[in-house]
Protein backbone atom coordinates (compact mmCIF):
# COMPACT_ATOMS: atom_id res chain seq x y z
CA UNK A 1 0.00 0.00 0.00
CA UNK A 2 1.51 3.30 -1.08
CA UNK A 3 1.10 6.70 0.46
CA UNK A 4 -2.40 7.57 -0.64
CA UNK A 5 -3.01 11.12 0.56
CA UNK A 6 -6.29 12.93 0.13
CA UNK A 7 -4.79 16.21 -1.06
CA UNK A 8 -8.11 17.93 -1.54
CA UNK A 9 -8.87 17.23 2.10
CA UNK A 10 -5.53 18.67 3.21
CA UNK A 11 -6.14 21.83 1.25
CA UNK A 12 -9.59 22.13 2.79
CA UNK A 13 -8.28 21.92 6.37
CA UNK A 14 -5.15 23.90 5.71
CA UNK A 15 -6.55 27.24 6.95
CA UNK A 16 -7.36 25.56 10.23
CA UNK A 17 -3.84 24.16 10.52
CA UNK A 18 -2.36 27.52 9.60
CA UNK A 19 -4.36 29.07 12.43
CA UNK A 20 -2.76 26.54 14.74
CA UNK A 21 0.63 27.33 13.26
CA UNK A 22 0.11 31.02 14.02
CA UNK A 23 -0.58 30.14 17.65
CA UNK A 24 2.56 28.01 17.65
CA UNK A 25 4.66 30.92 16.43
CA UNK A 26 3.00 33.29 18.90
CA UNK A 27 3.88 30.94 21.72
CA UNK A 28 7.46 30.53 20.59
CA UNK A 29 7.93 34.29 20.20
CA UNK A 30 6.46 35.07 23.63
CA UNK A 31 8.49 32.27 25.19
CA UNK A 32 11.75 33.51 23.65
CA UNK A 33 11.03 37.08 24.81
CA UNK A 34 10.13 36.21 28.40
CA UNK A 35 12.65 33.37 28.44
CA UNK A 36 15.39 35.83 27.45
CA UNK A 37 14.41 38.23 30.22
CA UNK A 38 14.40 35.39 32.73
CA UNK A 39 17.60 33.97 31.28
CA UNK A 40 19.38 37.31 31.57
CA UNK A 41 18.39 37.68 35.21
CA UNK A 42 19.43 34.11 36.03
CA UNK A 43 22.71 34.41 34.12
CA UNK A 44 23.59 37.62 35.97
CA UNK A 45 22.67 36.00 39.26
CA UNK A 46 24.93 33.06 38.50
CA UNK A 47 28.01 35.14 37.77
CA UNK A 48 27.39 37.98 40.24
CA UNK A 49 29.99 38.40 42.96
CA UNK A 50 27.37 37.37 45.56
CA UNK A 51 27.28 33.72 46.68
CA UNK A 52 23.60 33.88 47.61
CA UNK A 53 22.63 34.97 44.09
CA UNK A 54 24.89 32.27 42.61
CA UNK A 55 23.04 29.64 44.61
CA UNK A 56 19.61 30.96 43.67
CA UNK A 57 20.64 30.92 40.02
CA UNK A 58 21.88 27.37 40.27
CA UNK A 59 18.70 26.21 41.98
CA UNK A 60 16.65 27.76 39.19
CA UNK A 61 18.59 25.95 36.49
CA UNK A 62 18.55 22.73 38.45
CA UNK A 63 14.74 22.79 38.81
CA UNK A 64 13.71 24.00 35.38
CA UNK A 65 16.19 21.97 33.41
CA UNK A 66 15.72 18.91 35.55
CA UNK A 67 11.96 18.59 35.20
CA UNK A 68 10.60 17.75 31.75
CA UNK A 69 8.76 20.65 30.14
CA UNK A 70 5.70 18.46 29.68
CA UNK A 71 5.55 17.85 33.42
CA UNK A 72 6.03 21.57 34.13
CA UNK A 73 3.19 22.48 31.78
CA UNK A 74 0.84 19.93 33.27
CA UNK A 75 1.78 21.05 36.76
CA UNK A 76 1.09 24.71 36.00
CA UNK A 77 -2.19 24.06 34.23
CA UNK A 78 -3.67 21.15 36.19
CA UNK A 79 -2.02 21.26 39.63
CA UNK A 80 -1.78 24.93 40.49
CA UNK A 81 -5.58 25.48 40.38
CA UNK A 82 -5.70 23.21 43.44
CA UNK A 83 -3.99 26.01 45.38
CA UNK A 84 -6.13 28.68 43.78
CA UNK A 85 -3.75 29.71 40.99
CA UNK A 86 -5.55 29.40 37.69
CA UNK A 87 -4.33 30.19 34.22
CA UNK A 88 -5.87 29.91 30.78
CA UNK A 89 -4.14 27.27 28.75
CA UNK A 90 -2.44 30.00 26.69
CA UNK A 91 -1.12 31.70 29.83
CA UNK A 92 0.04 28.40 31.28
CA UNK A 93 1.78 27.55 28.02
CA UNK A 94 3.63 30.88 27.87
CA UNK A 95 4.61 30.69 31.53
CA UNK A 96 5.81 27.10 31.35
CA UNK A 97 7.78 27.57 28.16
CA UNK A 98 9.32 30.85 29.34
CA UNK A 99 10.41 29.39 32.67
CA UNK A 100 11.94 26.36 31.03
CA UNK A 101 13.40 28.26 28.09
CA UNK A 102 14.82 30.78 30.56
CA UNK A 103 16.89 28.07 32.21
CA UNK A 104 18.52 27.16 28.90
CA UNK A 105 18.88 30.77 27.77
CA UNK A 106 20.56 31.59 31.09
CA UNK A 107 23.32 29.13 30.21
CA UNK A 108 23.67 30.63 26.74
CA UNK A 109 23.96 34.17 28.11
CA UNK A 110 26.25 33.09 30.93
CA UNK A 111 28.75 31.45 28.63
CA UNK A 112 28.50 34.45 26.30
CA UNK A 113 29.44 36.76 29.16
CA UNK A 114 32.23 34.47 30.34
CA UNK A 115 33.69 34.44 26.84
CA UNK A 116 34.43 38.18 27.04
CA UNK A 117 38.05 38.96 27.93
CA UNK A 118 38.53 39.69 31.65
CA UNK A 119 40.43 42.85 30.79
CA UNK A 120 37.17 44.43 29.63
CA UNK A 121 35.61 44.27 33.08
CA UNK A 122 38.84 45.52 34.64
CA UNK A 123 39.05 48.46 32.26
CA UNK A 124 35.44 49.37 33.00
CA UNK A 125 35.88 49.09 36.76
CA UNK A 126 39.10 51.09 36.65
CA UNK A 127 37.16 53.99 35.11
CA UNK A 128 35.02 53.98 38.23
CA UNK A 129 32.03 52.10 36.86
CA UNK A 130 29.99 49.96 39.20
CA UNK A 131 29.76 46.26 38.39
CA UNK A 132 26.24 46.85 37.03
CA UNK A 133 27.35 49.71 34.80
CA UNK A 134 30.26 47.64 33.51
CA UNK A 135 27.89 44.79 32.65
CA UNK A 136 25.35 47.03 30.97
CA UNK A 137 27.68 49.31 29.04
CA UNK A 138 30.70 47.13 28.31
CA UNK A 139 30.23 43.39 28.78
CA UNK A 140 26.71 42.56 27.66
CA UNK A 141 26.79 44.61 24.42
CA UNK A 142 29.83 42.59 23.36
CA UNK A 143 27.95 39.32 23.74
CA UNK A 144 25.10 40.14 21.33
CA UNK A 145 26.74 38.87 18.20
CA UNK A 146 27.98 35.70 19.85
CA UNK A 147 24.52 35.04 21.21
CA UNK A 148 22.73 35.06 17.84
CA UNK A 149 23.55 31.48 16.77
CA UNK A 150 22.74 29.74 20.09
CA UNK A 151 19.66 31.92 20.59
CA UNK A 152 18.51 30.96 17.11
CA UNK A 153 18.87 27.31 18.03
CA UNK A 154 16.98 27.90 21.24
CA UNK A 155 14.15 29.64 19.41
CA UNK A 156 13.84 26.70 17.04
CA UNK A 157 13.83 24.29 19.98
CA UNK A 158 11.08 26.34 21.57
CA UNK A 159 9.12 26.28 18.33
CA UNK A 160 9.26 22.50 18.36
CA UNK A 161 8.54 22.31 22.07
CA UNK A 162 5.28 24.19 21.56
CA UNK A 163 3.90 20.83 20.38
CA UNK A 164 3.95 19.80 24.05
CA UNK A 165 1.34 22.37 25.00
CA UNK A 166 -1.26 20.41 23.06
CA UNK A 167 -1.37 18.36 26.25
CA UNK A 168 -2.84 21.26 28.21
CA UNK A 169 -5.71 21.81 25.79
CA UNK A 170 -3.95 24.57 23.91
CA UNK A 171 -5.12 24.47 20.30
CA UNK A 172 -1.85 25.11 18.56
CA UNK A 173 -0.73 23.31 15.43
CA UNK A 174 -0.49 19.77 16.76
CA UNK A 175 -3.72 19.99 18.76
CA UNK A 176 -5.62 21.28 15.72
CA UNK A 177 -4.33 18.33 13.79
CA UNK A 178 -5.31 15.91 16.55
CA UNK A 179 -8.85 17.28 16.79
CA UNK A 180 -9.48 17.15 13.05
CA UNK A 181 -7.80 13.80 12.65
CA UNK A 182 -10.11 12.30 15.22
CA UNK A 183 -13.22 13.96 13.87
CA UNK A 184 -12.60 13.17 10.20
CA UNK A 185 -10.76 9.83 10.53
CA UNK A 186 -7.89 11.26 8.49
CA UNK A 187 -4.85 10.74 10.70
CA UNK A 188 -2.37 10.34 7.86
CA UNK A 189 -3.43 13.53 6.10
CA UNK A 190 -3.63 15.64 9.24
CA UNK A 191 -0.38 14.53 10.84
CA UNK A 192 1.47 14.59 7.57
CA UNK A 193 0.36 18.17 6.97
CA UNK A 194 1.21 19.12 10.57
CA UNK A 195 4.68 17.60 10.27
CA UNK A 196 5.33 19.47 7.04
CA UNK A 197 4.16 22.72 8.60
CA UNK A 198 6.55 22.29 11.54
CA UNK A 199 9.34 21.65 9.10
CA UNK A 200 8.42 24.77 7.13
CA UNK A 201 8.46 26.84 10.31
CA UNK A 202 11.80 25.56 11.60
CA UNK A 203 13.41 25.87 8.17
CA UNK A 204 12.13 29.41 7.82
CA UNK A 205 13.51 30.43 11.22
CA UNK A 206 16.83 28.74 10.55
CA UNK A 207 17.18 30.82 7.41
CA UNK A 208 16.16 34.00 9.19
CA UNK A 209 18.75 33.49 11.92
CA UNK A 210 21.59 32.67 9.58
CA UNK A 211 20.73 35.83 7.58
CA UNK A 212 20.77 37.82 10.79
CA UNK A 213 24.09 36.31 11.78
CA UNK A 214 25.80 37.19 8.53
CA UNK A 215 24.27 40.69 8.64
CA UNK A 216 25.74 41.25 12.08
CA UNK A 217 29.06 39.77 11.05
CA UNK A 218 29.30 42.44 8.37
CA UNK A 219 28.77 45.28 10.82
CA UNK A 220 31.87 44.48 12.81
Amino acid at each position, binding site marked *: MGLDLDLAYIIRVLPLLLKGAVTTVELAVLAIIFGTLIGLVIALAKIAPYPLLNILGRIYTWVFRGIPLLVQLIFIYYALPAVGIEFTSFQAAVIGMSLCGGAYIAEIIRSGILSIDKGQM*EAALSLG*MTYAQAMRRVII*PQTYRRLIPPMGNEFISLTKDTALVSSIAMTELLRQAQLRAAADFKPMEMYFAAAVLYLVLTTFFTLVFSKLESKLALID
Partner: protein
Amino acid sequence: MIHVSDLDKSFGQLHVLNNISLDIAPGEVIVIIGPSGSGKSTLLRCLNYLEVPDSGSIAIDGEILTLHTQDITRIRSKIGMVFQRFNLFPHMTVLENVIEGPLTVKKTARAEAVKKGEALLEKVGLADKRAARPSQLSGGQQQRVAIARALAMEPAIMLFDEPTSALDPELVGEVLVVMKALAKEGMTMVVVTHEMGFAREVADRVLFIDEGQILEEGSPEEFFRAPKNERAQAFLSKIL
Protein backbone atom coordinates in the same frame (compact mmCIF):
# COMPACT_ATOMS: atom_id res chain seq x y z
CA MET B 1 48.87 61.12 48.02
CA ILE B 2 49.20 57.32 48.07
CA HIS B 3 50.03 55.69 51.36
CA VAL B 4 50.53 51.92 51.39
CA SER B 5 51.30 50.12 54.60
CA ASP B 6 52.10 46.50 55.34
CA LEU B 7 50.38 45.15 52.27
CA ASP B 8 50.07 41.37 52.00
CA LYS B 9 48.50 39.33 49.26
CA SER B 10 48.49 35.63 48.49
CA PHE B 11 46.93 33.60 45.71
CA GLY B 12 46.35 30.29 47.44
CA GLN B 13 49.78 29.09 48.59
CA LEU B 14 51.57 31.73 46.55
CA HIS B 15 52.65 34.70 48.64
CA VAL B 16 52.68 37.45 46.01
CA LEU B 17 53.02 40.64 48.08
CA ASN B 18 55.00 40.49 51.26
CA ASN B 19 54.61 43.36 53.68
CA ILE B 20 54.86 46.20 51.19
CA SER B 21 54.92 49.77 52.46
CA LEU B 22 55.17 52.73 50.16
CA ASP B 23 54.47 56.45 50.12
CA ILE B 24 53.96 58.39 46.96
CA ALA B 25 53.86 62.17 46.96
CA PRO B 26 51.72 64.28 44.61
CA GLY B 27 53.40 64.76 41.26
CA GLU B 28 55.85 61.95 41.86
CA VAL B 29 56.67 59.48 39.07
CA ILE B 30 57.46 56.04 40.40
CA VAL B 31 58.84 53.32 38.16
CA ILE B 32 58.54 49.75 39.35
CA ILE B 33 60.82 47.11 37.90
CA GLY B 34 61.40 43.50 38.77
CA PRO B 35 61.43 39.98 37.35
CA SER B 36 58.37 38.32 35.89
CA GLY B 37 56.02 37.04 38.57
CA SER B 38 57.52 39.24 41.27
CA GLY B 39 54.19 40.91 42.07
CA LYS B 40 54.46 44.20 40.16
CA SER B 41 51.05 43.95 38.52
CA THR B 42 49.46 42.72 41.71
CA LEU B 43 50.80 45.72 43.62
CA LEU B 44 49.52 48.10 40.96
CA ARG B 45 46.12 46.40 40.88
CA CYS B 46 45.86 46.66 44.65
CA LEU B 47 46.24 50.43 44.38
CA ASN B 48 42.79 50.69 42.78
CA TYR B 49 41.41 47.59 44.44
CA LEU B 50 41.08 45.53 41.28
CA GLU B 51 42.86 43.12 43.58
CA VAL B 52 41.89 43.14 47.23
CA PRO B 53 44.81 42.77 49.64
CA ASP B 54 44.68 40.17 52.40
CA SER B 55 45.98 42.60 54.97
CA GLY B 56 47.53 46.01 55.27
CA SER B 57 45.99 49.23 54.09
CA ILE B 58 46.04 51.63 51.17
CA ALA B 59 45.04 55.24 51.51
CA ILE B 60 44.50 57.55 48.58
CA ASP B 61 44.39 61.22 49.51
CA GLY B 62 43.96 60.20 53.12
CA GLU B 63 41.00 57.96 52.39
CA ILE B 64 41.47 54.30 53.25
CA LEU B 65 40.28 51.89 50.55
CA THR B 66 37.50 49.50 51.44
CA LEU B 67 35.19 47.28 49.44
CA HIS B 68 32.30 49.67 49.94
CA THR B 69 30.98 50.11 46.40
CA GLN B 70 30.30 53.83 46.47
CA ASP B 71 33.66 54.66 47.96
CA ILE B 72 35.65 52.36 45.73
CA THR B 73 34.05 53.53 42.48
CA ARG B 74 34.58 57.15 43.50
CA ILE B 75 38.24 56.49 44.32
CA ARG B 76 38.79 54.45 41.16
CA SER B 77 37.43 57.30 39.08
CA LYS B 78 40.32 59.41 40.41
CA ILE B 79 42.89 56.76 39.45
CA GLY B 80 43.48 56.13 35.77
CA MET B 81 44.78 52.73 34.73
CA VAL B 82 46.51 51.72 31.53
CA PHE B 83 46.91 48.04 30.77
CA GLN B 84 49.49 46.05 28.90
CA ARG B 85 46.86 44.79 26.47
CA PHE B 86 45.04 48.15 26.12
CA ASN B 87 41.60 46.71 26.90
CA LEU B 88 39.79 49.20 24.72
CA PHE B 89 36.08 48.56 24.30
CA PRO B 90 35.87 46.94 20.85
CA HIS B 91 32.18 47.71 20.31
CA MET B 92 32.75 51.45 20.59
CA THR B 93 34.56 53.94 18.39
CA VAL B 94 37.71 55.64 19.60
CA LEU B 95 35.82 58.73 20.72
CA GLU B 96 33.12 56.64 22.40
CA ASN B 97 35.83 54.82 24.32
CA VAL B 98 37.19 58.11 25.56
CA ILE B 99 33.86 59.64 26.61
CA GLU B 100 32.44 56.43 28.11
CA GLY B 101 33.83 57.12 31.58
CA PRO B 102 32.63 60.73 31.81
CA LEU B 103 29.19 59.80 30.41
CA THR B 104 28.53 56.74 32.54
CA VAL B 105 30.43 57.49 35.72
CA LYS B 106 30.41 61.26 35.98
CA LYS B 107 27.13 61.79 34.13
CA THR B 108 28.79 64.55 32.12
CA ALA B 109 26.60 66.10 29.43
CA ARG B 110 27.34 64.52 26.07
CA ALA B 111 28.36 67.71 24.29
CA GLU B 112 30.84 68.58 26.98
CA ALA B 113 32.25 65.04 27.12
CA VAL B 114 32.72 65.05 23.36
CA LYS B 115 34.49 68.39 23.47
CA LYS B 116 36.90 67.21 26.15
CA GLY B 117 37.29 63.83 24.48
CA GLU B 118 38.30 65.46 21.20
CA ALA B 119 40.81 67.64 23.01
CA LEU B 120 42.32 64.53 24.62
CA LEU B 121 42.53 62.72 21.29
CA GLU B 122 44.28 65.79 19.94
CA LYS B 123 46.69 65.61 22.84
CA VAL B 124 47.63 61.98 22.13
CA GLY B 125 47.83 62.73 18.42
CA LEU B 126 44.79 60.78 17.29
CA ALA B 127 42.18 63.43 16.54
CA ASP B 128 41.68 62.00 13.05
CA LYS B 129 40.88 58.53 14.41
CA ARG B 130 37.85 59.53 16.48
CA ALA B 131 35.41 57.50 14.38
CA ALA B 132 37.64 54.44 13.97
CA ARG B 133 37.16 51.17 15.80
CA PRO B 134 39.98 50.01 18.09
CA SER B 135 40.52 47.00 15.83
CA GLN B 136 41.46 49.36 13.00
CA LEU B 137 44.32 50.92 14.97
CA SER B 138 47.92 49.88 15.52
CA GLY B 139 48.95 48.79 19.00
CA GLY B 140 50.64 52.11 19.67
CA GLN B 141 47.55 54.00 18.62
CA GLN B 142 45.33 51.77 20.74
CA GLN B 143 47.48 52.39 23.77
CA ARG B 144 47.35 56.13 23.23
CA VAL B 145 43.55 55.93 23.05
CA ALA B 146 43.62 53.94 26.28
CA ILE B 147 45.65 56.71 27.90
CA ALA B 148 43.18 59.30 26.63
CA ARG B 149 40.30 57.19 27.96
CA ALA B 150 41.89 57.12 31.40
CA LEU B 151 42.68 60.84 31.31
CA ALA B 152 39.08 61.66 30.41
CA MET B 153 38.15 60.96 34.01
CA GLU B 154 40.59 63.73 35.02
CA PRO B 155 42.39 61.42 37.42
CA ALA B 156 44.80 62.57 40.09
CA ILE B 157 46.91 59.44 39.69
CA MET B 158 47.77 57.30 36.68
CA LEU B 159 48.80 53.64 36.91
CA PHE B 160 50.58 52.02 33.97
CA ASP B 161 51.11 48.26 33.85
CA GLU B 162 53.76 47.54 31.23
CA PRO B 163 52.09 49.91 28.74
CA THR B 164 54.59 49.20 25.98
CA SER B 165 55.32 45.50 26.48
CA ALA B 166 52.74 44.33 23.97
CA LEU B 167 53.93 46.74 21.29
CA ASP B 168 56.22 46.25 18.32
CA PRO B 169 59.50 48.05 19.06
CA GLU B 170 58.88 50.79 16.53
CA LEU B 171 55.58 51.71 18.27
CA VAL B 172 56.99 52.02 21.79
CA GLY B 173 58.31 55.55 21.29
CA GLU B 174 54.98 57.18 20.47
CA VAL B 175 53.45 55.87 23.70
CA LEU B 176 56.44 56.92 25.81
CA VAL B 177 56.22 60.43 24.36
CA VAL B 178 52.67 60.75 25.64
CA MET B 179 53.67 59.42 29.05
CA LYS B 180 56.61 61.77 29.32
CA ALA B 181 54.42 64.74 28.49
CA LEU B 182 52.03 63.63 31.19
CA ALA B 183 54.84 63.39 33.72
CA LYS B 184 56.00 66.87 32.78
CA GLU B 185 52.52 68.21 33.49
CA GLY B 186 52.92 67.02 37.04
CA MET B 187 50.74 63.91 36.94
CA THR B 188 51.32 61.47 39.77
CA MET B 189 52.30 58.24 38.03
CA VAL B 190 53.12 54.69 38.99
CA VAL B 191 54.62 52.86 36.04
CA VAL B 192 55.58 49.22 35.77
CA THR B 193 57.91 49.00 32.83
CA HIS B 194 61.05 47.48 31.40
CA GLU B 195 61.86 50.69 29.54
CA MET B 196 64.98 51.72 31.43
CA GLY B 197 65.45 54.82 29.31
CA PHE B 198 62.04 56.04 30.43
CA ALA B 199 62.88 55.25 34.06
CA ARG B 200 66.17 57.17 33.84
CA GLU B 201 64.65 60.17 32.19
CA VAL B 202 61.32 60.53 33.93
CA ALA B 203 61.25 58.66 37.22
CA ASP B 204 61.65 60.43 40.52
CA ARG B 205 62.10 57.08 42.19
CA VAL B 206 62.73 53.54 41.00
CA LEU B 207 61.51 50.55 43.01
CA PHE B 208 62.92 47.09 42.49
CA ILE B 209 60.54 44.34 43.50
CA ASP B 210 61.29 40.66 43.80
CA GLU B 211 59.23 37.92 45.43
CA GLY B 212 56.70 40.44 46.62
CA GLN B 213 59.14 42.69 48.45
CA ILE B 214 60.61 46.07 47.68
CA LEU B 215 64.30 45.18 47.74
CA GLU B 216 65.66 48.48 46.62
CA GLU B 217 64.41 51.98 46.03
CA GLY B 218 66.10 55.19 45.09
CA SER B 219 66.54 57.90 42.53
CA PRO B 220 67.25 56.59 39.03
CA GLU B 221 70.85 57.91 39.23
CA GLU B 222 71.55 56.00 42.42
CA PHE B 223 69.68 52.97 41.32
CA PHE B 224 71.22 52.48 37.91
CA ARG B 225 74.73 53.47 38.92
CA ALA B 226 75.15 51.21 41.91
CA PRO B 227 72.25 49.11 43.14
CA LYS B 228 73.04 47.82 46.63
CA ASN B 229 70.89 44.72 46.52
CA GLU B 230 72.40 41.67 44.79
CA ARG B 231 69.25 40.58 43.10
CA ALA B 232 68.72 44.09 41.78
CA GLN B 233 72.30 44.01 40.46
CA ALA B 234 71.70 40.67 38.80
CA PHE B 235 68.43 41.86 37.31
CA LEU B 236 69.96 45.05 35.95
CA SER B 237 72.92 43.28 34.43
CA LYS B 238 70.49 41.02 32.59
CA ILE B 239 68.29 43.72 31.07
CA LEU B 240 70.75 46.55 30.43
